């Protein structure tokens, strides 16, 4: 097996995550799809780190994890705030700025 197979898997997972962000309506599921995209990028980083024999890629993946954790914390707080005022977690309902 070729180590590049991990890159194909990463590309596939990233694409699936991107479709999920566009197609799903529930804000929490959209968030999980964003997480999937970040995880796919991490897999690519780790694979390239192995291909290049260099730990820099793993350090970048580590930083990505920290940033993803921050994003989840703030994003879920926003979802809870929106849910508290609008009683809905659907991304279609939060369209107050449009009107």
């Amino acid at each position, binding site marked *: 097996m070729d180590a590049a197979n991990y890159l194909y898997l990463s590309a596939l997972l990233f694409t699936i995550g991107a479709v999920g962000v566009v197609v799903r309506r529930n804000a929490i599921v959209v968030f999980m799809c964003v997480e999937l995209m970040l995880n796919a990028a991490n897999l690519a980083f780790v694979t390239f780190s192995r291909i290049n*024999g260099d730990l820099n890629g793993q350090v970048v993946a580590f930083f990505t994890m920290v940033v993803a954790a921050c994003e989840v914390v703030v994003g879920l707080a926003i979802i*809870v705030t929106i849910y508290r005022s609008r009683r809905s977690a659907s991304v279609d309902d939060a369209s107050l700025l449009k009107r």
Partner: protein
Amino acid sequence: MVDLAISVGQTQTPEAVLFWVLAPLTVAAALAMLLVKKAVHSAILMASVMINLAIFYIAQDALFLGIVQIVVYTGAVMMLFLFILMLVGVDSSDSLTETIPGLRPIAITAAVGFGGLLVSLIGRATLGRNAIGLEAANSLGNVQGIAQLLFSRYVWPFEVVSALLITAALGAMVLAHHQSIQVRPTQRQLSTQRFRGESLANAAGLPAPGVFARHNAVDVPALLPDGTPAANSINATLQARGDMLTSGTFELGRVDTSKGEEK
């Protein structure tokens, strides 16, 4: 598989077996995440994808990242997701009808194009040399190698990221902070209200639920001496939710005086 121009070396057979068993499972779980209706099922599938990715990290000599993936992602982040799901309501299943007409075909076409682009790019890229592998870089151990990089070359980004984490925590606290609209009355005020109000009907407190009813439960209204249910003996929240049992079924029958006993 496509014949690859990129030559990054062959891996050992056990890893190939691991990959070909787990990679289809991962892709299937990710796809199912898109297709299932309930958000909780999506979360469980997402957790399985993350665990599979952790196994891939460990298989690729990234032991530290593999453990961190399990601890941080499947441990902390997915728990947070499930916690928020419970808070928002597990029953809120997503309607899979598309609200913007034609969005789904466009999204899928764009995704197929994007994915095809990525895959063909990876297939055509040439590295010009073989994969090196992490044996040399991990000679002191994976954690030690990462620590050496993190605390020398990346020490400034590391500090910035810590500031980011603190900011995120503060932001979440500010967002989750709930400002109460009215001042809560103190016990003294409530007591004054009870005795100096218009009537002394409730001066001794509201009737407790279930008293004189046939069932001693909080969702059954108390029965007044004349046999009628007392609506104010039920908690207002239960009433608003409609969780209160209809009092008619628990009303006492009319006392039949001729036989001298209750029905």
